[in-house]
């Protein structure tokens, strides 16, 4: 046993490696946390703000903060921007470590509910009651996903984002076809596009929530919004509905018919490769959130300007019970105030909420980004190149009988992860529709 020291070193090194990995993961990277929750904050109520990076939103978020900082030099807001998928984990880790920002950007729904249950965010109900002028400027339909147990914990900001079917007009003229008006037409377009070596649909499957949008629409069109409402309400075995099996079968039929671009399951949405496939003409159609318009305008050269991008609400399914005006997506983005922030920082945040975030420049900025603002009375601003798109999006959002929130945002993070995991396996044909239903019934109400 003369080599004992070596063996112990191996042993210790290994333990250190594994434990270190776990510890690093547990600590997480708290990220740049300037005047984060627990700290006492500088004089004048400096506040921090975390949100998403990249087009189309980041320039307008930055502009709002610059505007506020200019008007309030004593109580500056420091922004930090993160990539979409990375942000979702980062914000949780930071909040768990009491290193969160003063203002927490989010999607409302199940994620917000978890913050509320952990006493991480301020109740804004009373503040909004005292500042009725602020509340009146925002679309009332956007408050739903920011409300938990009848109390408002997050202010709707930025834009209303329905998910729509985008298409490349050039690709359609190449095969001499019209945009699909029904599910049957979609399925018959698939072989036509494939014959021309154009992928029928672009999809960033690695991000998983991109696949989910298909299920949301197909379920709604076949069975209406009630099925998911029952899941959301936590009813036992709510996924065991024949319409769900039918919808899942339709998805797998489309996958098997090569409806999606080759290699879709390794494409991540964060790099916007899915949008690139559409504007480069490698794919003919794409189901995506309305924010994609701003990305394609920014990155797609003259594609949008030359009028080659088309859009429409998801078409109905033959014999389906769902109202074809229904849509899903984000009824708004949401800003909460950390309950761990200092009183001064909270004041700064509230001032930001009641002044900059509801001013006319904010409204005009989001319109310019290619989005429909959550602020009322934006219709008069729909002019110029984007007018038609903005009018259509406002029409879809306001004309929808039901504007459902995206499933992964509506559900708790635990249920959402199982959902996304099973959706990825469904698209990979790793699970059958029945296995999918069984797995999802297991996490209802969790």
């Amino acid at each position: 046993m003369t080599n004992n020291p070596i063996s112990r070193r191996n042993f210790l090194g290994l333990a250190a490696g594994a434990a270190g990995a776990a510890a690093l993961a547990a600590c997480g990277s708290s990220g740049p946390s300037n005047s984060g929750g627990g700290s006492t904050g500088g004089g004048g109520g400096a506040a921090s703000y975390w949100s998403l990076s990249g087009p189309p939103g980041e320039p307008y978020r930055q502009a709002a903060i610059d505007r506020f900082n200019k008007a309030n030099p004593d109580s500056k807001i420091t922004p930090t921007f993160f990539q979409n998928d990375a942000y979702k984990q980062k914000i949780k880790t930071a909040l768990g470590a009491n290193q969160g920002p003063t203002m927490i950007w989010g999607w409302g729904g199940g994620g917000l509910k978890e913050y509320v249950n952990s006493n991480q965010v301020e109740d804004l109900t009373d503040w909004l009651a005292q500042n009725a002028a602020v509340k009146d400027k925002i679309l009332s339909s956007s408050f739903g996903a920011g409300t938990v147990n009848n109390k408002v914990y997050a202010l709707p900001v930025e834009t209303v984002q329905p998910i729509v079917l985008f298409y490349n007009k050039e690709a359609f003229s190449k095969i001499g076809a019209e945009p699909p008006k029904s599910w049957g037409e979609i399925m018959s377009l698939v072989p036509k596009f494939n014959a021309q070596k154009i992928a029928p649909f672009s999809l960033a499957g690695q991000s998983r929530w991109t696949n989910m949008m298909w299920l949301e629409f197909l379920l709604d069109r076949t069975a209406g919004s009630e099925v998911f409402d029952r899941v959301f309400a936590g009813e036992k075995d709510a996924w065991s509905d024949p319409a769900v099996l039918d919808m899942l079968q339709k998805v797998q039929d489309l996958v098997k018919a090569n409806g999606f671009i080759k290699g879709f399951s390794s494409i991540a949405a964060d790099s916007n490769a899915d949008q690139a496939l559409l504007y480069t003409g490698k794919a003919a159609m794409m189901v995506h959130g309305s924010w994609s318009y701003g990305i394609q305008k920014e990155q797609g050269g003259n594609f949008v300007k030359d009028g080659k991008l088309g859009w429409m609400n998801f078409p109905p399914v033959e014999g389906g019970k769902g109202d074809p005006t229904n849509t899903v997506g984000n009824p708004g983005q949401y800003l909460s105030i950390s309950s761990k922030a200092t009183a001064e920082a909270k004041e700064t945040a509230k001032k930001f909420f009641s002044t900059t975030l509801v001013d006319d420049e904010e409204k005009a900025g989001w319109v310019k980004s290619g989005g429909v603002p959550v602020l009322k009375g934006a219709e008069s601003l729909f002019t110029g190149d984007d007018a038609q798109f903005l009018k259509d999006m406002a029409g879809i959002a306001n004309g929808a009988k039901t504007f459902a929130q995206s499933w992964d945002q509506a559900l708790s993070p635990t249920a959402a992860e199982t959902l996304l995991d099973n959706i990825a396996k469904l698209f990979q044909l790793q699970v059958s529709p029945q296995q999918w239903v069984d797995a999802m019934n297991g996490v209802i109400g969790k």
Partner: protein
Amino acid sequence: MTTIAPPVVRTKEPSRSSGGRSGSVLWMALPAFVWFVIFGIVPLLGVLALSFTTWNGIGEIQPSGLDSWKATLTDPGLPHALWVTFLIMALSWAVQTPMSILIGVFLATSKRYREFLAVLFFIPLLLSSAAIAITYKALLDPNFGLGTGLGIELLNQDWLGNSTLAMATLIFIVSWQFIPFHSLIYQGAVRQIPTSMYEASQIDGAGRVRQFFSITLPQLKYTIITSSTLMVVGSLTFFDLIYVLTAGGPGDATRALALLMYQQGFQANLMGPASAIAVILVLVGLGLSLLLRRLGGRGDESQLEGA
């Protein structure tokens, strides 16, 4: 060879391990020990404690007995993740070891052009895993990748979107990244083999191949064990490369234990089960490392007998 085991070595043993110098050696281990307790033992105990709780990562930590363990051990994702982990381990070992030994032996000879090649071989080791993963992801993109760029349709496979191909691609990238490191270890080890052995065998009429199998490989025994331990234990903790490259996908085709732990803890907000997986990861690693030590046999036999 064991017949001429020299007693000299044995008499030296006691004086080495229990001599007067051990007192002064112990304190030298102190800084490392303190560091290890703070960053190794304490978090490990923390993870162990967390595995008996329910915690969503942001709220209150609630003790919940064996709930997390039950949830983890009945999750069908666990055996799958274990299988993926072992597959990555076995395949990357099987690819890396022969390649590393051959390259190491090749580079051990001091010739100018080989020294130049050694520098080139070393380059992948200088890059971070995340950078490698992002680069490969871009190169292997089925629509905008290398195949399209060079106009070679054959390269436009669904490298990361097909379960089998994704695993093969992962093994290739892991090997590409770590073969230089292990070659370096073997290069050093080969240079330590006394030239007299080769000279003697030459006189006996042994050729190059015979020399390789009868002298080089047996002499590299302990190096192979060290290098294998590093590979096996290292592959347990692969995370960054897989996460950036495939995020565990497609589906769950490349979801190894470390990724399952991350998914449970940071995406599903189930810190309890994630900690249980972390504990399993530590146990598996310890078991493997001890097993490899055993395979190495007793460490007191000399390799230089007769040299």
